[in-house]
């Protein structure tokens, strides 16, 4: 049950009705959200819920222990247990097979025996997001930034809350858990904005991302040798926008649905392709992940408060690990490393020439174009099945084979729309949302139905799961 399906919308409406029917009472309110979250996850597959229960239990015991412990050493030991157990989950289900394959290829030639059979472990949906969010809570408790007084149910709901359980955003305890005990409210404006946000998310995902994906990206990446160089380049650009509209569409729906229940999730994107340098790009892309990496990895490593070489090392470490977080494949590490190198170069540039106070338009344009080019080129590694395929794709891009006929007018149109809606000022969204909120209820409903009809007709290509569902 993906959040762009009709079933999900029906599910949300049903939970919405139940939730607001009991919202004044803590246990019924929390119960509705927890049962809904478990039901939602079970619709994918119920088995991982048991794994998550074990993980939450360990975390919760650690949190409670930290709450009671006076000794800093004990608190440190408990947070270490929690972090290790969470990373163990991630390593076991996500990276074990990759490590086995890597060891097999490295050690087998030396006659060292490595298990030849694959582990055949399937990764629970949303595990990466679950683990990062779980770590954020226990570490925040350790740092004194979050309360250890939350109940097990709250802890469980915090990690499995259905609007975000699949692919985030990674929400801190201070942004979600503390609100469980507060009686929620939903103003007409907030509700209207939430519905508008969900509608925008659906359009982003179903109309723009999926048209680009199914109409060009999938076929070209599946067999780049069948396409001209220009078509491959357009496909790489289209994938860059597909990924943004896919994930930001998902995030819009998640943020909108959470808002329907009175919760405010953090923003995940800030028009990343307008970034003027790669550092700014990471301050605009997948914000909940990049801030997590900043707070729980980069800063503990020393962040910027260390020597310059160490800063560069920290940047590379964070980017490689952040890359690898996306998938158990060394190509993600390569992708992260390339971004890391770009960040280091950017940082060195800033150190040597300083940060311009108000860069001129040419400089901004060059910066944006360079950053976007780096992002597009590295997306190829991100999207290709493996490094060999990525190599073939690059080769094809550079081959200079003429022709662009396989890019259909619909794809061109969506690409233009993608660029336009990415570039227009945010005020346009705000004004549109305000306009929607001010509409009379029947008109709002009519607008939503018309929007649904539009989606039905415009998204008449194959729709696909969210890209980030695999992470």
């Amino acid at each position, binding site marked *: 049950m*993906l959040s762009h399906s009709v079933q999900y919308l029906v599910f949300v409406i049903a939970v919405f009705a139940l939730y607001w029917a009991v919202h004044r009472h803590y246990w019924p309110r929390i119960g509705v959200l927890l049962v809904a979250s478990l039901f939602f996850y079970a619709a994918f*597959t119920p088995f991982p819920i048991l794994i998550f229960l074990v993980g939450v239990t360990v975390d919760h015991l650690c949190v409670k222990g930290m709450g009671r412990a006076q000794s800093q050493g004990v608190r440190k030991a408990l947070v270490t247990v929690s972090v290790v157990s969470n990373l163990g989950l991630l390593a076991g289900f996500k990276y074990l097979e990759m490590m086995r394959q890597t060891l097999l290829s490295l050690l087998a030639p030396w006659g060292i025996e490595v298990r030849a059979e694959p582990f055949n472990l399937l990764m629970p949906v949303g595990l990466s997001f679950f683990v990062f969010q779980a770590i954020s809570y226990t570490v925040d408790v350790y740092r004194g930034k979050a309360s250890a007084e939350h109940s097990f149910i709250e802890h469980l709901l915090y990690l499995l809350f259905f609007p975000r359980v699949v692919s985030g955003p990674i929400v801190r305890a201070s942004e979600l858990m503390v609100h469980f005990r507060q009686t929620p409210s939903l103003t007409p404006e907030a509700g209207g904005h939430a519905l508008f946000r969900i509608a925008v998310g659906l359009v982003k995902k179903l109309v723009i991302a999926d048209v680009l994906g199914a109409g060009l990206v999938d076929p070209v990446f599946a067999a780049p040798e069948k396409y001209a160089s220009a078509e491959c380049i357009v496909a790489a650009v289209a994938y860059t926008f597909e990924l943004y509209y896919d994930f930001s569409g998902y995030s819009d729906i998640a943020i909108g649905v959470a808002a329907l229940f009175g919760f405010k999730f953090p923003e995940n994107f800030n028009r990343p392709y307008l970034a003027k340098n790669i550092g700014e790009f990471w301050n605009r892309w997948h914000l909940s992940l990049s801030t997590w990496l900043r707070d729980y990895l980069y800063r503990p490593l020393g962040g910027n408060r260390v020597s310059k070489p160490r800063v560069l090392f920290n940047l590379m470490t964070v980017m490689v690990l952040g890359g690898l977080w996306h998938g158990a494949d060394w190509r993600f590490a390569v992708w992260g490393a390339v971004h890391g190198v770009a960040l280091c170069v950017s940082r060195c540039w800033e150190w040597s020439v300083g940060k311009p106070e108000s860069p001129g338009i040419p400089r901004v344009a060059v910066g944006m174009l360079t950053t976007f080019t780096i992002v597009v080129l590295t997306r190829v590694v991100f999207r290709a099945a493996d490094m060999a395929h990525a190599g073939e794709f690059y080769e094809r891009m550079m081959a200079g084979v003429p022709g662009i*006929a396989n890019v259909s007018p619909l794809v061109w149109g969506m690409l233009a729309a993608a660029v336009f809606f990415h570039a227009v000022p945010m005020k346009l969204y705000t004004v549109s949302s305000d306009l929607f909120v001010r509409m009379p209820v*029947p008109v709002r409903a009519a607008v939503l139905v018309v929007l649904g009809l539009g989606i039905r007709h415009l998204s008449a290509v194959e729709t696909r799961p969210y890209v980030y569902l695999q992470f």
Partner: protein
Amino acid sequence: MDFLKARSTGLTLILTVALALGLSLAPVPDALRPLPSLQQGPLPEKLVALVLPTSLSGGRATRPPGEVMTAGAGAAKRPPVETEEVEEPADAGALVAEPLPAVPTTPGIGLEELSAPTLARAKDLEALRERMGSQHVDIELNCRKAGPDGNCLEDGLAPYTRALAELREDARRTPVRVVHLGDSLVASDHITDLVRDRLQERFGAGGKGFLFITRPASAGRWTRSGRGSDGWEIERLVDSKWPRDRVGWTGVAFSSEKGSQSTRYDVEGSRVAELFFLAQPASGSVQFSVDGKPLQRIHTRGFSKNKSEAAFARVTLPQGAKSLTLTTSGKVELHGMTLESGTPGVVYDTVGLLGGMAEVYLRAQPAAFRAQLRQRKPSLVVMMVGGNEAFFYSRDRTTLDEVRAQIKELMSRVRTNVPNAACLLMAPIDAGVRTMSGEVVSRRGTQEIGDIYREEARAAGCAFWDAYAAMGGGGSALRWLEEGLMLDDLVHPRARGSDLLGHLFDLSLQRAFAKSRAPLVAVVDPTGLQNADTALARTFDKLKRREAGEALRVGVAQLGGSHTASHYFTDAVREVLTKRFGAAGRGFIAAGKASPRLEPAGVTRALEGDWTIEDAAKDAPPGELWGLTGIRAVGSPGAKLRIQFCKDCPEAKETSGRLDLYALDVPDVRAPDITIDGELLPPDAPPPEPLTEPTVRIRSFPVTGASHTVEVTAPKDGNVTVLGASLEYDTPGVVYDALGLPGATASALGAMDAAAVDAQLASRRPDLLVFWYGTNEAGRPGLDASALRRDYTAMLTRLRKATNAECLVMGPTDRLTQDANGRWSEAPSLASVLNTLPQVAKDAGCAYWSTRAAMGGERAMLRWQRAQPALGHADGVHLTPEGYARLAGAFSRELLTAYEAHKKAGPTSRVEDN
């Protein structure tokens, strides 16, 4: 109520749902329904399907990319028994697997005439077919010409099968051409290359056929185009601005707008090149150069001042040409090039356009379409479109009526333009789509379009092949995706999936051909190694023990005629076996003059002085003493014979072995001088009793090292008769003796002195005797088959008894004879020998392997002669070195496959080593 207190948001949701439901159920156009599925079935069911997640309503859950755990992930591994229900019942028809046509039984599935290597690959594909639930679907022949009484006078494929029959009977001097038009499935040439290879193997290769000037912008492999320079302007019929009024069925125009352009073709084996171009006013010229040397300049200027038209220029290529380069001068527009060998055979043209549809081919200029098609004189035109039509239909961007009209028009155009050609229409293959919820389901409309194609093919008198049913019907694309046979786009098969489709189509063509005629000779010629499991059990056991590390020698002795004597076959088989099981020496070498054929094995022979080489196959009286190959070398006094083994082998001082010399001792004649590695050996001790008659004497000498030379010098007062020599090492492995005599028959071996043959053969300690006789028998008119069966069986029984070896009988090659008009037909007794030898093998308890079947069966020799490089000799009897190597590869593979099967089947039994 608090819910209502949520006020406008709750009300908005309620009203939105009500409006959406109301609109979906109201009598409004379908386009205005937000949830059209509600109108297409019982409302409660549809509402449940809408509300419940697919995983809870029994459907396949979303399968996210990658190995992520979902309810559907496990299910995805299982082949779907039934297809799931989808939102729209209109689609259900496309998803429910139809009962598929039964596997045809007559005359087999079409594997009979494939050569051994191709057959092995075909069997792999058959296993894949079984696993995927794909089906052998016969071509629906339909009727292209009906009599006044309504009876069909000519089926839809008749021109094609008739042309192939003429080829088979060597009654045709021009190629049989097939023109295959299609979409991206054809563009990749992954389906058609298999069909082309198989047809050319069965009926001879007529050349590469039609090739583009360079790769059209989005074409994949270089296999169906020249290697063009970068500046060609390319316009395709599939483009939004397609080349109007210029291009025919070839579909792509290549123009040299930006100065001189060039393209290069690999033309090895081609003798005729024909350029397809546009003749137009003020057009430039094209220089043909072969291997860098100018050959001919073609002017592409049109005769008419105002008109452009499709034109052609044929150029004969010199023998041995390797590459052909076209260089343009001035503005020219080229459409393609055909390359043909100029010999009878099959030429399979393919034109695949990415995004190709019937409508796209109808964009071609009618006159150019006609001219280009007529120029090819095809016997068959295959149309493989429909996939893109199905895509557009599933998106409501076309209608079934439009699809029908377009395919009808395309077939009409083909039939009108080449009325003497057969035509065949294929149904589109199954494809999948991902739904709004990310579910992967079959694309709707594919089967409907297939049904329309079937109807229209019947009406047009074209044959029809249901590729959809062959693939496995509705849902097969999903199974293929899960099995890795389909690309993630759910539309295009991967290379292996394409191979499977090509395999199924090829076999359906072959079945149609087989049904259309009787075989030229009535024989039962089994394909593959027969009876190996029982007849070769001890040999296989010994090989197994050898492979497990036991220090064993496994001896194989192959006896036969010139096929064996040429050493090409045995050298190749020896190489395969020794590579796997180890090499224990070269084995037996007959005495004789120097022969280059021995050099690949590192053996040299030399004769000095006066020698006579006597041959048992040349009217020798029966009962004489001969060497194992039926040869004896008789040297006059003082003459010297030298045989050197392992000439260029690296020094291996620790290798020990024995060198055996086979010679005749004659009464009252002094023994010859024998030198081993330059060292003269002391004279033999006299025999205990004086010799009364010539006797075979086998002298054995221990040797150390890899390379050895034996020299025999006749005494000054008498002759010497040398039969041969052998070298074996003490290292474990296989020794493969090649004991062949050109022109020999089984009866020639039987006529030699039995005791001498038995003793010599026993000394070779064979575990397996391989007999390859029959080709010479096949050339003898009036062969007495019953005598052959009786005598050959008796000889096999005798030799088996003498050696305690197992045996394998090989059948004759496809021996043909040529009449005064140059037409080939079967050798007079080929059928008789082919029918007898399996019986002989059975009677003597031997395994049997038909070389003719391995070559490809009926008239295989003709095709092997015409292959590039030639595999069959011009005499219709022998093979070329390449042919022997190919046959040896097939034999080795069959033998080792049987060995593997034996290994898996049973435990090793200890056998007595010979």
